[in-house]
């Protein structure tokens, strides 16, 4: 299918808009009317043609605009992409994974021609053509992680596996929900998750880690995570929080539908073959509430989830102050009717 790429902004004038197609395929994360943490990992295989779960790395109408926004973030703050020296091989593994997957899943947009270690990559939407020698960094304009993730939607963390733990030793992080790669790089699984309330006590991270340590080649997994953002701002980094934090106070009863966004992360995990490390893509999808409620089940369910969410979670996810206003807005879309199990529209 041909995608109509948009030319839109995720900052300043916020011209970002979802088409009807994007709204219908939005990865709504709640399968029931309440929310608590769980190790909600499932196999990442192709599901529901047209959905965000169909392809290994989903490409949508926001692709070109998101890559432009990433380039701006990096120009302003190069520390958003870092790779500790021993992670270059993992970067190559990721480059191969993304190029092979995109060329296979979207042959009209991406081509990869491999002649031994001489590779030729064509990215039509971004008008990029690159010939290079696989595993030779001197033949690329920058390291493999940075090179390929400047052409792939979503954030990417690379996790080294050592000492029965996973270590965040490289990443391209420009669309994060409020955590700093520069600060967290070098931390292990428990350390970078340390600020999350409740989850450690529930044993979530112990179980997740045990599972992930045994993740194998060819058997990736995925899960959904979520938070809320005022305005479709992709760069909600701690680094810039002193600039964007105040936007939360611009929410008013008359603009909740337009400004308040549900922000969902499609997280996937892949074992990387040559480095034995793990790729951890974190793909961000945004939807304004007034678009979300056009799916009646989602309107009802989101109202109930946010209304009943424990205070600590709403605080940690950064919307505690605006919660009453958001719940009030959503109440008009909740007639108390039953909602079907699962996340998909009826």
């Amino acid at each position, binding site marked *: 299918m041909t995608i109509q790429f948009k030319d839109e902004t995720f900052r300043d004038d916020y011209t970002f808009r979802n088409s009807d197609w994007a709204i219908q395929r939005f990865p709504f994360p709640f399968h029931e009317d309440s929310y608590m943490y769980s190790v909600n990992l499932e196999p990442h295989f192709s599901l529901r043609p047209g959905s965000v779960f169909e392809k290994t790395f989903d490409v949508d109408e926001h692709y070109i605009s998101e890559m432009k926004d990433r380039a701006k973030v990096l120009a302003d703050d190069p520390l958003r992409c870092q790779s500790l020296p*021993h992670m270059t091989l993992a970067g190559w593994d990721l480059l191969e994974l993304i190029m092979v997957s995109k060329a296979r899943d979207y042959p009209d947009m991406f081509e990869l021609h491999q002649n031994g270690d001489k590779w030729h990559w064509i990215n039509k939407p971004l008008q990029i053509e690159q010939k290079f020698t696989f595993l030779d960094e001197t033949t690329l304009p920058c390291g493999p992680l940075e090179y390929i993730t400047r052409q792939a939607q979503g954030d990417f963390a690379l996790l080294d596996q050592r000492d029965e733990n996973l270590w965040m030793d490289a990443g391209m992080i420009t669309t994060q929900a409020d955590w700093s790669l520069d600060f967290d790089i070098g931390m292990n699984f428990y350390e970078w998750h340390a600020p999350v309330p409740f989850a450690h006590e529930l044993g979530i991270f112990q179980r997740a880690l045990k599972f992930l340590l045994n993740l194998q080649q060819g058997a990736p997994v995925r899960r959904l995570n979520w938070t809320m953002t005022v305005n479709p701002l992709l760069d909600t980094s701690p680094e810039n929080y002193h600039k964007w934090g105040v936007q939360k106070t611009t929410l008013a009863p008359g603009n909740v539908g337009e400004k308040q966004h549900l922000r969902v992360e499609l997280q996937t995990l892949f074992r990387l073959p040559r480095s034995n490390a793990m790729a951890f893509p974190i793909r961000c999808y945004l939807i304004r509430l007034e678009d979300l409620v056009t799916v009646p089940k989602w309107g009802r369910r989101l109202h109930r989830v946010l209304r009943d969410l424990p205070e600590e979670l709403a605080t940690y996810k950064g919307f505690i102050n605006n919660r009453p206003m958001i719940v009030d807005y959503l109440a008009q879309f909740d007639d108390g009717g039953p909602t079907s199990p699962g996340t998909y529209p009826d």
Partner: protein
Amino acid sequence: MSAGTQKLEVTLAEVVEVNALVKRFRFVRRDGGEMPTFSGGAHVVVEMRDGGITRLNPYSVMSDPRDRTCLMISVRRDDVGRGGSLFLHQKAKAGDQMVISYPVNLFSLDLRARKHLMIAGGIGITPFLAQIKQLAATNGRFELHYSVRSQALASYADDLRDHHPEHVRIYHDDQDERIDLDTLLDGQPLGTHLYVCGPKGMIDWAVKTALAQGWPREAVHSEEFLAPQSGQPFEVTLDRSGKTIKVGEHQSLLEALEAAGVDAPYLCRGGACGQCETDVLRHEGKFVHRDHWLTDEQKSCGNKIMPCVSRFEGKTLVIDR
């Protein structure tokens, strides 16, 4: 079956006698496609159908990770073992169709290391063969000390010495050549990692020596494929189906489950990785825990067992499978 590993349908393309005890086996994909690449230290689990018995044995991949045409293993014949190596040595032949798992790595290099110091004993050389090829291709710094029984049984020693004369040293048992580990470890640069692969005694000795010199535990890596040891036969009740099965003297609990058609997860089949961890619902008797996975507390609690290597002696054992 293993939850989480892919299988590769392969043809055994070639069997080469390396010496009186060791044979090399080369697998290619039946569909003619590329083999997956892997990280040095990885192993594959080879499925062998030997008459009525299905064996699943892990073997280190020794080939070059960049060689996508094949995967190669080397197997030392064990005349008193449970028969896996005998099957490969005596019955497997070129042209046979077999199934192997995707490579799995439980003995990987620490890529932060300033230097990789390798100690190999006998057939323990196999993971290092792949790792050395990987490091050589990336200018990694390594040093191998390889203990063999005799020149005649020094698998791949000539090859290693020819390619890396400055970084390989061979010690022949029958000439009383011993690795002087104390001296070897003393003065290694900060950031050196030690890797040991060989018999249990060798691993224990190397770890003890390094720790006594003040090396941190995380800088010492070892791999020992624990072959499941034989033991008294015992009965197990499988709670999910209500079936009761018998585990034979030379059969592991995991193998008995598989023989009964139960799809139990596994990865290393050697008591190290935790994948086969199984809940015990009821028991009257005592456990023979032979794994490296459960904590001492878990082992004494009696509510978990690792079916790939551990056994049971007693009246009743009910597990959650």
